[in-house]
C-alpha cells in the first residue's frame, strides 16, 4: 500500500475557493491538511461540526495519523459527490486491499478502518470491511486468530467437537 504524497493538491492556501470553504484538519501527529468542506463532510463527524458551526478553526483529528488521514483524503477526493468518478481509478484504489498478506498491509487497513469508524465515513467503512472480508474469507482459524489478535479460549475437547460439527467448512 502506498500513501498519498500530498493530500489535497488543488488547495492553494486560500481559505475559500470560489464559494467552497476549506477546512483545516490536524492529525494526531500534528500534520495539517486543508480539505474542501464539500469533500470533508463525507465524514458524518465533521459534517456535524460544520453544521454546529464548530469547524471554524483547526479541527483536531485525534487517533488518526497523518499517513492514514492522507489516505482518507485520497478516498474523499475520489468519491466527491458530483465529481466525475473514474471507475478504473476507483477500482485501482480499492484493489490495494485485494491482498492483505503481510503485517504492514494488515496494519494499513486496520488504521484506515479505525479512521473510517472514528470519522464516521459509511462508504469508506463499507468498502474497507468488505475488502477485508474478501481477503480473509479463505483463511484458516489460526490465521484468523493471528489477524484479529485473538487467543483461543476453547479447551481442546470443545474445539474438537465444534470442528467436527463444522467439518465440511474446513474442506475445499
Amino acid at each position, binding site marked *: 500500500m502506498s500513501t498519498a504524497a500530498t493530500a489535497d493538491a488543488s488547495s492553494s492556501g486560500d481559505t475559500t475557493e470560489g464559494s467552497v470553504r476549506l477546512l483545516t484538519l490536524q492529525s494526531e501527529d500534528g500534520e495539517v491538511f486543508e480539505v474542501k468542506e464539500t469533500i470533508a463532510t463525507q465524514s458524518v463527524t465533521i459534517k456535524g461540526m460544520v453544521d454546529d458551526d464548530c469547524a471554524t478553526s483547526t479541527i483536531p483529528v485525534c487517533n488518526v495519523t497523518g499517513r492514514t488521514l492522507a489516505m482518507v483524503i485520497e478516498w474523499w477526493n475520489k468519491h466527491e459527490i458530483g465529481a466525475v468518478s473514474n471507475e478504473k481509478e476507483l477500482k485501482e484504489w480499492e484493489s490495494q486491499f485485494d491482498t492483505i498478506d503481510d503485517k504492514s498491509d494488515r496494519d494499513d487497513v486496520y488504521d484506515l478502518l479505525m479512521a473510517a469508524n472514528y470519522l464516521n465515513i459509511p462508504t469508506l467503512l463499507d468498502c474497507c470491511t468488505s475488502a477485508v472480508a474478501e481477503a480473509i474469507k479463505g483463511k484458516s482459524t489460526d490465521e484468523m486468530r493471528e489477524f484479529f489478535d485473538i487467543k483461543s*479460549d476453547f479447551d481442546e475437547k470443545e474445539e474438537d467437537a*465444534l470442528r467436527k460439527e463444522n467439518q465440511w467448512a474446513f474442506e475445499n
Partner: protein
Amino acid sequence: MSSTFPSDLIAGILSYLPVKSLCRFKCVSKSWSVSIIHPQFVKVHQARTRRQKFLLVNDASFYHVDPDTSLLHQELSSSSSSSYRKVFPIKHDRPFKEEHDHHNFRGCHWVSESSNGLFCILMNHPPDNFFVYNPSTRESKKIPNMESEKESYYRMHYTLHGFGYAESIDDYKFVKVLIKRKIIQIFSLRNNSWKTIKCDFPFNVNNFRDIFVFSFNGAVQYGIPLNGAIHWVVVMHGYNGLGYYSMVAFDLVEEKFKTLPVIEIAKLKRVTVFRDRLCIVDCHDRFWIMEEYGVEESWTRISISKKPYPYKCAWKNIGYLFMNLDDDGWLQRYYESTVFDCIRSYTMHAYVENPVSPNFHRRCHHK
C-alpha cells in the same frame, strides 16, 4: 500501538463473509462461536449479503449447488447462442443428526419453499418427522411431534402445510391448517413449542372444488412464504360451474387468515415468488407478479426474456429453480440437460444463504 479490532468492526467484517467461512470461524473462539449465530448478527449479515444457492434432494441424499464456486466450465460451447455453465453439486451425507440415522434416509416426502434461508422438510421415513434444515450451515432440528397427533398421509388431504419467516418477530413458524377439523397447529421455532388455535379459514370448505396442488403426490398442500405470511391458492366453485381461484394468506404474526386477490386466469400452473413478489404462472407459461402486495390492480404480466424452463427434462420442479431467482440471467445457465446427470431424479430448491441456527433458541431455553 494496540491494534485490536473493536468488536463492532469485527462483526462488520464478518457480516460480509460467505456462510461457509463463518462456519469455520465459529472455531476461532468461544465469543465468535456465539456471536456468529446471534440473531443481531444474522440480521446484519442478511441485510449485507444475498447469496443465492440451491438444494437438490433425491432419494439418496442432499446436494448443494453454489453457483459462485461450483462452476467449472463457463461457456461450454461458445459457438452456441446460449452459454451453459456446468455446476457440480456437493453431496451432503447424513443431512440429519445421529438419532435420525442416515440408514433410514429414504428421501423426502415434502420440502417446503425456503423462507429466509431455512427449509422445513418432511421425511419419507420415519413418517410424521418434520425437520427444520439450514442448508447453508448444514444444521437441522427435528420439530417435536405433537402429542396424540399421528396424522397418516391420506388424512392430510385437507391439511395445508406451510413454513415461513416473520421478520417483525424474528421467528420461523411451521403451520398445519386442518381445515376439516377447523384447527390450526403452529410450531414456533423461537419458542420451540406447538400451539393449537381455532381455524378462521375464510372459505367454507364445502365450496371447495380443490386446493391447488403442487406437491409430489397431492398429499401435502404447501404454502408460499412471503412478507411474514404463508399463501395458498384455492379453487372455488363459481356460479357458472367453472372454478375460480382465490388466495388465502396466513399471517404469521397475527396468526390470522386473510384473503388476497388473484388475477383472473384460465388455468393456473404454479404459484411462487419471483423478484420478491408473489408470482403466478398460467398453463401457457405466462407470468404475472403482484407488484404491490395485496393490491388486485397491481398484478402485472411480465415477460421472461429467455426461453422458458424445460418441462421436457425429467427433473421434477426444475421450474422453480429460476422462478425464485430475481435475475432472468440465471435461467439459461441451469437447464442444460447434462448439467446434473450425475444425480437422478431430484427436486431442486433455491434459497438465500443465511448463518442462522435452527437450534439457537433451543440452546437459549436450556440455559
